[in-house]
């Protein structure tokens, strides 16, 4: 074990006191509303994403109850369509993406030896805009009439919103408008975050940290961020086009004017396919960090793991029409995309083999983070293999739009991304709270989720191959699907139980968890060199990096056989001791309310845009008036707030010198 002593326990309130001592001057809620500290922003992203995970999970349970047996009417078709639309939209945009953002925020500056991100206020802005978008999207539930009578107003076009179904003539009401505008706002948040992380990673690495000495998680953050900045504009344009068709009678998807619904699909999937790699690469980064630490040996083939991640990023732009094999694109297009999709399996395989080689010959520390990481490899492999079967185009004509596809993407997004994120939570919890999560509860959490997950989604593969299409609110009783659906429902509730255990573990551990040292797992990367929880300024002295896994090499040298030998205490120049010095003389960016103010403008403008053409009569008790007349002042107010926030932001100093 490395030559460190376990310092005095630092609790969360103590860490906050230190932060204030280092320059932050606000207390309580206000300190959270004005924070520009990446660690606090990361915590807020994590809390919000977890909240939406529960919301999306409840939506999933509602779906599973409805489908548990044939011909049920627990949910009517209208409710069902809205709930499955929100389940998908929530899980993609309000759970996996912001949870990944939480990890980017918490870890990237620490892993590269920086004190914060490049643009701390823009970082806060991203978070508040995301909150605005998430709230607007979910507020739609309450706008369909009497919520308690089951009249919902949420969007009902599916998470993919295909035209012409989502045009005004087939989707009256405002559900789709909430969807379109909500996603635009969320896109702005993601863009701002992505710009921030690219600049941070490219420009603010500690001296000596070349790109190829960065942790894999940081690489994956970089690739994901590049994918975001190029993919989001595409869906943004698609959403604008749909908005203009709906609100102003434009013809982008109007068949009678000569338009084609395929334009929507091409735009959506040009975004959509890079999007799924945006969803999985961060979790792959997390797994690439956990496996070496818990195997006690380096990541096997680091350059190849990095290159395959970059390759996946590039290749993800060339496969989008594999979501459109059945749309009649023609043999040439189908063949081209079939081949490119087959090829994208190769870099993924490289990662899996390298992860396995990392474990091989290691001394495996079987703790919860490790279980989730191995679970990731196991589940993602199955998901990836079913993906290969989809790439066999003629076969896909049977598989497309069935539960076999639903099983595939849940296998990679839940069994992959969510498992990775859970593993990361257990792994880095001690760094940010100074406590370890309870291992027994962790194991119960893992096994409930693992068993529940498999019980839910493997039967769906069978049901899909037996001809069960997607997005149906019920099915007949003599089609042979009821057994598989019943199993899936049992599995879903098992998952829910597992998530409950996680929540219990999280809260209990925060209060009474076993104290954690700065480096409880014998880690390899820079975040483990500073106190748990970290001081506001992260590093008392910015470290000088000499190699990949620099911290590990400060703790260990290698003997003739390549086995690590601990460096004697005091002989290393680890900046460990320095982390506990007061960190005086470090000026941090000042807290600011301007990002929040600027961000608040967006959902207000958004709400106004949803109803901008609505001629319903309102306020009859005031003498009447059309709704849209109220919307224009509302939009103006929102715009004014945004402009005030932006100008305030531009004019205030970034730090108080």
């Amino acid at each position: 074990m490395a030559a460190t002593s376990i310092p005095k326990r630092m609790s969360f309130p103590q860490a906050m006191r230190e932060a204030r001592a280092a320059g932050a001057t606000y207390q309580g809620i206000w300190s959270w509303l004005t924070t520009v500290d990446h660690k606090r922003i990361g915590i807020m992203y994590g809390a919000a994403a977890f909240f939406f995970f529960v919301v999306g999970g409840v939506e999933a349970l509602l779906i599973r109850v409805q489908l548990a047996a044939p011909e049920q009417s627990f949910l009517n078709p209208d409710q069902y369509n809205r709930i499955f639309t929100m389940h998908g939209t929530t899980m993609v945009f309000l759970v996996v993406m912001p949870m990944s953002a939480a990890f980017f925020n918490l870890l990237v500056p620490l892993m590269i030896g920086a004190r914060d991100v490049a643009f701390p206020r823009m970082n806060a802005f991203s978070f508040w805009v995301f909150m605005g978008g998430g709230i607007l999207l979910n507020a739609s539930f309450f706008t369909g009439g009497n919520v308690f009578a089951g009249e919902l107003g949420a969007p009902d076009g599916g998470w993919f919103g295909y035209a012409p179904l989502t045009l005004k003539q087939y989707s009256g009401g405002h559900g789709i408008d909430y969807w379109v505008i909500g996603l635009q706002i969320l896109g702005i948040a993601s863009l701002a975050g992505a710009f921030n992380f690219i600049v941070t990673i490219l420009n603010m690495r500690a001296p000596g940290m070349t790109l190829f000495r960065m942790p894999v998680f940081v690489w994956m953050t970089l690739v994901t961020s590049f994918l975001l900045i190029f993919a989001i504009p595409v869906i943004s344009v698609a959403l604008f086009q749909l908005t203009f068709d709906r609100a102003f009678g434009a013809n982008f998807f109007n068949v009678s004017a000569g338009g084609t619904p395929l334009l929507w699909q091409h735009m959506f999937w040009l975004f959509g396919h890079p999007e799924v790699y945006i969803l999985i690469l961060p979790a792959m980064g997390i797994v690439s960090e956990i496996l070496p630490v818990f195997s006690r040996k380096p990541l096997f083939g680091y350059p190849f793991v990095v290159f395959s991640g970059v390759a996946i990023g590039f290749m993800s732009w060339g496969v989008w029409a594999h979501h459109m094999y059945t749309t009649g694109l023609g043999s040439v297009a189908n063949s081209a995309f079939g081949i490119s999709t087959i090829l994208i399996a190769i870099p993924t395989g490289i990662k899996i083999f390298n992860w396995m080689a990392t474990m091989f010959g290691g001394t495996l520390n079987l703790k919860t983070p490790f279980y989730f990481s191995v679970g990731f490899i196991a589940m993602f492999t199955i998901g990836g293999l079913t993906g290969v079967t989809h790439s066999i185009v003629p076969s896909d004509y049977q598989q497309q739009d069935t539960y076999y596809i639903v099983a595939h993407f849940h296998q990679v997004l839940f069994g992959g991304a969510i498992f990775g994120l859970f593993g990361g939570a257990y792994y880095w919890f001690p760094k940010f709270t100074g406590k370890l999560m309870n291992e027994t509860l962790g194991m119960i959490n893992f096994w409930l989720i693992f068993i529940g997950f498999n019980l839910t989604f493997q039967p769906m593969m069978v049901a899909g191959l037996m001809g069960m299409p997607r997005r149906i609110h019920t099915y007949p009783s003599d089609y042979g699907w009821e057994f598989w659906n019943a199993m899936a429902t049992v599995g879903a509730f098992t998952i829910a139980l597992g998530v409950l255990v996680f929540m219990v573990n999280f809260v209990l551990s925060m209060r009474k968890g076993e104290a954690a040292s700065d480096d409880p797992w014998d880690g390899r990367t820079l975040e483990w060199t500073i106190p748990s929880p970290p001081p506001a300024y992260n590093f008392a002295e910015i470290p000088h990096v000499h190699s990949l896994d620099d911290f590990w090499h400060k703790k260990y040298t290698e003997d003739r056989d390549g086995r690590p030998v601990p460096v004697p205490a005091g002989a290393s120049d680890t900046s460990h001791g320095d982390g506990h010095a007061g960190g005086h003389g470090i000026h941090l960016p000042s807290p600011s309310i301007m990002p929040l103010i600027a961000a608040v403008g967006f959902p207000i403008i958004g709400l106004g845009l949803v109803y901008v053409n609505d001629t319903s009569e309102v306020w009859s008790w005031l003498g009447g008036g059309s709704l849209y007349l109220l919307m224009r002042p509302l939009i103006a107010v929102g715009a004014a707030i945004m402009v005030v926030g932006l100008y305030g932001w531009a004019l205030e100093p970034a730090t108080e010198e």
Partner: protein
Amino acid sequence: MVAGLLGGLAFLFSGCSIFSSPQNTFAPAGEVAEDQRSLFMLTMWFALAIMIFVEGGLVAMMIVFRKRKGHEALPKQVHGNNALELGWTIAPALLLLAFVPFVVGGIVELGNTPKDAITVEVNAFRFGWYFGYQAPDGTLVEGDPSSVSDPGPGLYVPLGKKVELRLHSVDVIHSFWVPKLAGKTDVIPGRTNHMWIKGDKLGDYAGQCAEFCGLSHSQMRFHVKVVTQAEYDQYVQGLVTARDGSPGNDELASGQTSGGSGE
């Protein structure tokens, strides 16, 4: 949830097969579905092999290499092996590329209109289907539409004959899918997609819209009847009779098609 669990158990013991369905893609009754199933099986063995290797490997390593009390020595710090990297990049690439001829071949074969096929017009709307056949005099004659409550007459196809389907939608995107005969093709307004099927066993096969199209998407079902050539001709003639009032009446406007004009 309890009901589901009990229901599941009941089925386990009820003798009702849980692997049997009117829409089972693994019980093909037509050439296209048969070819698609074979292709799937080809890749499935490969996938199964990789899966066993990876899952088995993971479990084995967790057992063999787990940290044991008393054996706390740290392992050899291996950084990589270029030969291995090359190997596990090239081997999977070759294996995967081996599928390409089958993939492209299948795409081309299914995408080309067979030379000896008869043509049927398939029309989809919210929420049902109706089909148009070539009458002996060259005109188009249509059957009654289905609805959410009425399965309609179904699509008639003659046994053993390739049928080219031209797909039309009057409103949103639907998808024509009769799993036991063929994979699906989307029915998109403003364009005419096409696919061919062939029924190799007499029978009545279940189909369902497979592209989310709104409130009654789940009920947009249809069926395909594979009948003898004689029965097929009889059915089409019956439609002509119903349209014209009496056999042999050719007063109607010739060459009238419905819904097939937008390409």
